[in-house]
């Protein structure tokens, strides 16, 4: 029970936040909408009130006189037409402005959500199912569209009606007003109760929808595996279970939302009867100066008082589901971004004959670390070299289980360092620490003798090229995908990089060469071709240090040899960390680290390690046999 009030409070905050979002950029437009709604409401009121005027002021006198004069009526009708036309125009205006406001707010929300997502640490993506993240964009953001576009104007409209009616009611008769207000209180109480239940189910509905979304996406991504393992039946069974859950919660959520309307309307009817009976009793005894005529007018007010309450409660369903969606949207937005306390920046430099360094905007191909010293207020520059040292590094993904123990590495500029070891030994993890995808638990990592915690993350990553274990390409042309490495690279530079990576020849054989469109993560290319592209992408970035994670693992031997040549050229003068299963590819490394269970158990050159006849020797000779 103690958690319930807290939840409701959170809900209120969510609503506040959405309104804040909407009002931030559209304060004046929204004010205009409110004004237009008021004008429209007043005009609509005119049309309902006109019946009485028509009969009392025009028809009755005309019936009485022998020769009816239609002139005044015609004049009055033209006047009315004018007023109503204004109502139509304001109605269109607020509908139209609301489109701008709701779509503008949606756009900002999407962009903010995306921008924030891009800033989240890798860990977030490790711990959240990708389908769940997608569902926030597709399902949850959508529910807000209805809230902003429809529910909010409706609520304002109803509020206006309630205020005007209430004022008229107070003027007519206070005791009956109290009765009506009491009944409306009951309506609000009941709608609160029903709404509370509905809300719980709407939240679980959004959650179940997310689960279905995630499941479908996962199964489609792995469709090949599903098919070759004949897993369709199981996939359908699991889906049916999730689908059933979704129906269950959607059914309950909608049920409570649906019965809201009849419940409200009929409490309204009972309120009407109560007022009629009490009013009649009062009027017949002449209490409170209540005449029968006033009672009749009051009763019609009673109806128009409870109607907007019913209408608002009818909107509750969509408000509730929007709240459930918004909570998930804001939860993602509240995830802490990657924390960056670095202040050392990477800058382009020019060097004169004396070796003095000056900062420049020109593309000189030379870089330096810009190191501000707060205490003295001075700035020093240090040439970017690509030296990487690790000192006694420990690391754990979850803070509990240490996966890397006491790792120390010295990579001088231009050296090639190789990591070998069995799957899960921690090879990839080490490289993910160097570019700070994850932060270390203990020890130190230095890049060009600067603690990497002091370097701005984006500059650190810019100074490190990466070819990842699984290749991801983006929708766009081949050229655009290569240029991803360096956005200001010219077409010629991209082609040079492709040539270096030996990707040029296959690209030229594609239907549109470098302008071939890639879709769905480069699904129309073979695995090896995609890797060649990833290497070209890294080559065009031209970083002083590189991480190649199993880059050659799924390229056949002939292509591998080609890539190897390109790689060797690319590695010239660069510090390189290589992770490869095929030991033949790491033979020429300056230093080979053999990892086992998160520890470096052997290190040295190929010849040294072979001589040692240790684990590497076993792996090497073993692999020779199986390969």
């Amino acid at each position, binding site marked *: 029970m103690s958690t319930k009030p807290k939840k409701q409070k959170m809900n209120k905050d969510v609503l506040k936040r959405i309104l804040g979002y909407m009002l931030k950029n559209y304060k004046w437009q929204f004010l205009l909408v409110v004004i237009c709604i008021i004008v429209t409401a007043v005009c609509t009121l005119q049309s309902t009130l006109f019946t009485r005027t028509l009969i009392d002021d025009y028809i009755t006198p005309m019936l009485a006189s022998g020769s009816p004069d239609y002139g005044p009526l015609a004049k009055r009708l033209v006047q009315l037409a004018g007023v109503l036309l204004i109502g139509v125009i304001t109605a269109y205006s607020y509908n139209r402005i609301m489109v701008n406001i709701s779509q503008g707010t949606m756009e900002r929300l999407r962009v903010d959500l995306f921008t924030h997502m891009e800033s989240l640490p890798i860990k977030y993506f490790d711990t959240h199912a990708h389908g769940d993240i997608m569902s926030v964009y597709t399902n949850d953001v959508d529910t807000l569209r209805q809230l902003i576009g429809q529910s909010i104007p409706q609520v304002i409209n109803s509020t206006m009606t309630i205020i005007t009616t209430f004022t008229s009611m107070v003027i007519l008769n206070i005791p009956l007003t109290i009765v009506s207000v009491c009944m409306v209180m009951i309506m609000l109480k009941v709608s609160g109760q029903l709404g509370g239940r509905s809300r719980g189910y709407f939240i679980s509905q959004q959650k179940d929808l997310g689960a279905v979304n995630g499941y*479908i996406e*996962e199964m489609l991504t792995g*469709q*090949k595996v599903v098919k070759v393992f004949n897993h369709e039946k199981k996939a359908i069974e699991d889906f049916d279970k999730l689908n059933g859950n979704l129906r269950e919660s959607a*059914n309950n959520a909608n049920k409570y939302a649906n019965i809201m309307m009849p*419940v409200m309307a009929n409490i309204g009817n009972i309120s009407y009867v109560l007022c009629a009976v009490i009013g009649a009793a009062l009027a017949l005894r002449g209490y409170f100066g209540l005449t029968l005529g006033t009672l009749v007018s009051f009763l019609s007010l009673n109806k128009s008082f409870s109607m907007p309450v019913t209408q608002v409660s009818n909107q509750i369903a969509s408000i509730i589901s929007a709240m459930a969606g918004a909570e998930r949207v804001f939860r993602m937005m509240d995830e802490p971004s990657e924390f960056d306390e670095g202040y050392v920046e990477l800058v382009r430099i020019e060097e004169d004959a004396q070796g003095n360094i000056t900062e420049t905007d020109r593309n000189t191909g030379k870089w330096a670390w810009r190191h501000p010293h707060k205490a003295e207020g001075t700035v020093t520059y240090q040439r970017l070299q690509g030296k990487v040292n690790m000192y006694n590094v420990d690391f754990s993904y979850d803070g509990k289980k240490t996966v890397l123990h006491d790792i120390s590495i010295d990579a001088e500029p231009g050296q090639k360092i190789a990591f070998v070891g*069995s799957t899960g030994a921690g090879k990839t993890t080490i490289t993910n620490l160097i570019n700070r995808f994850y932060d270390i638990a203990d020890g130190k990592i230095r890049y060009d003798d600067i603690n990497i915690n002091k370097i701005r993350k984006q500059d650190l990553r810019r100074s490190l090229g990466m070819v990842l274990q699984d290749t991801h390409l983006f929708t766009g042309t081949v050229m655009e995908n290569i240029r991803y490495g360096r956005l200001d690279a010219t077409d010629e530079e991209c082609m040079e990089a492709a040539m270096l990576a030996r990707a040029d020849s296959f690209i030229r054989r594609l239907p549109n060469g470098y302008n071939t469109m890639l879709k769905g993560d480069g699904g129309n290319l073979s695995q090896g071709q995609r890797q060649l592209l990833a290497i070209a992408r890294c080559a065009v970035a031209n970083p002083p240090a590189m991480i190649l994670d199993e880059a050659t693992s799924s390229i056949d031997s002939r292509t591998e040899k080609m890539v190897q040549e390109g790689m060797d050229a690319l590695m010239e003068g660069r510090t390189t960390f290589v992770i490869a299963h095929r030991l033949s590819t790491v033979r020429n490394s300056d230093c080979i680290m053999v990892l086992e269970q998160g520890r470096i158990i052997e290190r040295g050159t190929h010849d040294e390690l072979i001589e040692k006849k240790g684990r590497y020797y076993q792996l090497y000779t073993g692999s020779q046999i199986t390969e």
Partner: protein
Amino acid sequence: MIKRFLQEVGEYKRDTILTPIFTAAEVVMEVLIPYVTAMIIDQGINAGDMNAVLKYGGLMVIMAFCSLFFGFQAGRHAAAAATGFAKNLRADMYRHIQEFSFSNIDKFSTAGLVTRMTTDVTNVQNAFQMIIRIAVRPPLMLTISVIMCFVISPDLSTIFLVAIAVLAFALIIIMMNAMTTFNVVFTKYDALNASVQENVSAIRVVKAFVREDHENSKFKEAAGNLKKLFVKAESIIAFNNPAMMLVVYGCIIALSWFGAHHVVAKTITTGNLTSMFSYVMSILMSLMMLSMVFVMITLSLASIKRIYEVLIEEPDLKDPAQPVTEVADGSIDFNHVSFAYRQGTGDNVLKDIDLHIHSGETIGILGPTGSGKSTFVSLISRLYDATEGEVCVGGRNVKDYAMETLRDKVSVVLQNNVLFSGTILDNLRWGNPNASEEECIAACRLACADEFIDRMPDGYNTHIEQG
């Protein structure tokens, strides 16, 4: 198309039929209640008769409870019918997608299929509920009111007929315009979601190359374009409400003018005119509701079409009419096989392959990247069909087998490994759902994977997320 969708009602037929019936009963109560209120005023309050007030008041309370009961039932069944309909629709789509070949899936894209099965189905679910629950109400109210009007004055009623015709025409124009724009909107929406998906799965690449800003500006542009289109589509819909009001007001003015003449000419009474006004309101209220239903349907029509496209998509690969369920032996024959991913382009990945492998042989296939090795293997388990020639397993064309049999007998280890959310054990059991834990562990030992699994926090029960 409608027929296809009605099939999805399935076991929820009872709920679907009961909803309009209860709604109709509710509407009857709603129409009757104003009569009783008129009684309370005319015979009770105006006549100063307290007993009559109590009598009709009591009657109205009883009717209110009846109306509540009907409304409650209608709401309950409507929810059951609509959500059940959506469930069946999703299940059907999912089953159908399971039969899709890769080119079928590529046609819609993964993101596209996901949106179709979630957002679009939710849209259709809401529209369905709206139709069975609310759509019965306005036509019924409309019919009753129009009949009453004609009873009072056929002359004045022609005003309504003209108004309804004008309105219907306006609504159709609005709807048709909105539809075309919404179709474009949804395509763009898919593309936007696809780019989000791309970023989620390639987040390491984005971060490694420090391309967050680049991706952000790409997304911003796409979201901006989407917004523009949405604004365009919804501004057409924004005409709906004012158009309605224009017609209502026109009716009121026309009725005032002509009504006044009729009353003065004594063809109708003042009371009749007042009733006519209240019927105008109820007719136009129904039309207002109807237009809301139209908007909902308009919005969902695009969704309906998108769902329908998935449902009618013919899977490229189909089981034969009389499938063979036994594989005789492990022999594999390629008889002059050619294959192109896109048929008719002449871009053959495999050209005239003629190869015969005997049962039990181990065959190595060599060649540079992109030379067609994976494609070659894919044809054996019939992930694609050969463009020319025939592929035979156990001496029979692969097209003769039930796909399940074929894929059960031909095991594949794929190049890029996809793991699924669940424990490691769950993932292992993909190979054989009935495998015991011991068998799974033994298999891991064979694949030399036991070592790293043992080091996971919960061993074989470690939960892994996708990828």
